């Protein structure tokens, strides 16, 4: 299939394809980080993760409308405000959900799956009632659209770069929070030994609530960023849920590094196969590959070895 092209073109295409893989990688990491915290650290299976993302997207939509209406001069920068608002909103909603629902279910992880599925139905209907059944178009500042031409052929989408930078920032932020901050120590202490953590004076309830909120908040930021590349409708969130869970599980649920490694593996596998096969078959093969590896290595790529 390559005989028709010059060496130059091929190099360019491979470069762009590699970049497409990197964008997909960033997207997957962004989707999965929030879930990795909630599922990996707390053991809660949050089926409403996609709906939290879409909430972030709707907040972005509202913010863009407000800016377009009242602050047109600042429209170029609205996206940053929108992301912060998206984080705050989903963070608060996440804490509310933890307080009203999740905290009763810590000892029944599979039941969190059912309850959050119910929650996702309710959220979908709320979005539909508030924003209408149709998808909404989120208008973006001009500077975020378009691409940056590296050479004649190689063009790099600016929103892709934006997503990548955002992912790096958030991943570093999460890493710092979880592994470098006092709060992260508390979280890990609670994860590893709840009664002991409680005994040494950690407010485990508060830690749970904030951790869940944080996971949701990151989902909100991800949703906000995805308005650049995806759709915003009441049921758009469901598109993400399977991929997100697979990334987290494939990485080894308790390891943030694993999540990143798994996102990288999956994205590269998928974008490579997409180039040689049709999109549908690439998707099928990617899923099969992940399921196959998980069967061989059920603990995921990076799992802690636990001594009994």
């Amino acid at each position, binding site marked *: 299939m390559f005989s028709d*092209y010059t060496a130059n073109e091929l190099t360019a295409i491979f470069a762009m394809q590699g970049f497409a893989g990197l964008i997909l990688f960033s997207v997957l990491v962004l989707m999965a980080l929030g879930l990795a915290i909630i599922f990996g650290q707390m053991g809660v299976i949050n089926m409403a993760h996609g709906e939290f993302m879409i909430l972030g997207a709707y907040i972005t939509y509202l913010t863009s409308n407000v800016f377009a209406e009242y602050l047109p001069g600042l429209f170029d920068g609205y996206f940053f405000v929108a992301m912060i608002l998206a984080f705050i909103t989903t963070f608060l909603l996440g804490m509310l959900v933890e307080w009203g629902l999740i905290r009763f279910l810590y000892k029944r992880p599979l039941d969190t799956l059912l309850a959050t599925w119910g929650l996702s139905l309710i959220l979908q209907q709320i979005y539909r009632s508030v924003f209408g059944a149709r998808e909404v*178009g*989120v208008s973006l500042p001009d500077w975020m659209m378009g*691409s940056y031409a590296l050479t004649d052929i190689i063009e790099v989408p600016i929103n892709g770069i934006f997503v990548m930078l955002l992912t790096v920032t958030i991943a570093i932020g999460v890493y710092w929070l979880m592994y470098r901050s006092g709060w992260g120590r508390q979280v890990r202490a609670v994860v590893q030994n709840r009664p002991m953590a409680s005994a040494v004076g950690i407010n485990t309830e508060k830690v749970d609530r904030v951790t869940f909120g944080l996971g949701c908040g990151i989902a909100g930021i991800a949703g906000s960023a995805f308005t650049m590349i995806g759709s915003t409708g009441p*049921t758009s969130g469901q598109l993400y849920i399977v991929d997100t869970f697979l990334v987290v599980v494939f990485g080894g649920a308790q390891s943030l590094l694993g999540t990143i490694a798994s996102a990288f593996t999956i994205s590269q596998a998928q974008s490579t196969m997409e*180039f040689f096969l049709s999109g549908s078959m690439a998707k099928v093969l990617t899923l099969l590959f992940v399921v196959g590896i998980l069967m061989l290595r059920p603990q995921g790529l990076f799992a802690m070895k636990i001594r009994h």
Partner: protein
Amino acid sequence: MTTTRGITTKVSSVLKKLALPIALSLAASNLAHAESVNTTGLAVTDDTVKVGILHSVTGTMAISETGSVQAEKLAIEQINAMGGVLGRKIEYIQEDGASDWPTFAEKSKKLLVNDKVAAVFGCWTSASRKAVLPVFEQYNGMLYYPTFYEGLEQSPNVIYTGQEATQQILAGIDWVVKNKGAKKFFLLGSDYIWPRTANKIARKHIEKLGLKVSGEEYYPLGHTQFNSVINKIKLKKPDVIYAIVVGGSNVAFYKQLKAAGIDMTKEKPLVLTISVTEDEILGIGGENIEGAYAAMKYFQSMENENNKAFVKAFKERWGDDIVIGDVTQAAYLGPWLWKAAVEKAGSFDIDKVRAASPGIELTTAPEGYVRIHENHHLWSKTRIGLAKKDGQYDLIYETDELMEPNPFPVGYK
């Protein structure tokens, strides 16, 4: 094991819970029977006639079907304001297909068997139509189906008010070949029957014209990552990207296409789509699809008097910021075509309405003039629109003649 005496108690309490809704539903269905007093066996009284509206109000398809529901309700209200059909006011019973095909089948059966409606306006996806089709054929109902679709079907119990694939495709391709000098096409679609069939028709036509198809790709419904295919498009350098992407994928595709530096306002590659109406642009954002061409039979911006009145009425009824797409307009035609057929037949009887249908003309259609073909599809013109930043299409071309519907094109028959 010891006894589980209490299970009986549980059962009886469950029974009580079950009994009420059953009893209620029975009562309701009996009532409906009692009122049908005329000879057709349908729910027609001296001053009312019942019809059904069957679309998804919930679930993933609600996004698309809302416009159709609004259009059908508007048409019914307008007909009633003009005195109804054969002197009877239309009453509609709305059912939710819930984006679930058996629910569609179930609800269509309820409309036909329990409610005895004289006609049903509804369905959107092919899958839902396929699910209800046997029900309509078995109980001899009449369905007015609004969506442009892949064809390959011709039921005596359905009037297809949208275009079938050849009507949309052939004119569009001819136009880009003639006016844009297109020679190389890249076909892209969501992975299901309509895009696949449509692309087959397109490929056949393109090859017949002696031109080249440089790629054909399908992505699962709901797919949101199109960077790889966009790279392939860049590699193949087609003149035309022929895109039949649907739903949420649409939004992702156009945003990513634009972000990848493919400027649709430039000559090449140009994008020709048959799946993006004004409704979809709302989600995509006008700035992301500006410059793309769409081939379909109706655009909201059409300047004729019929359409101006229709758009005005639609906005008055459903709000100013609403947009109207091809399917919405086709759904609006349904009640009017039915009214015309009933009046021609002089009866609500399904068989008589069916017999009267071919040849029914509508000169008041927002799209202009349509006529029902022997094969239950509509003769209609195909139009090319150019997407603008404000989310509307500029009408830049329409076929001189009405396109003949041909649901079974050669090679498929």
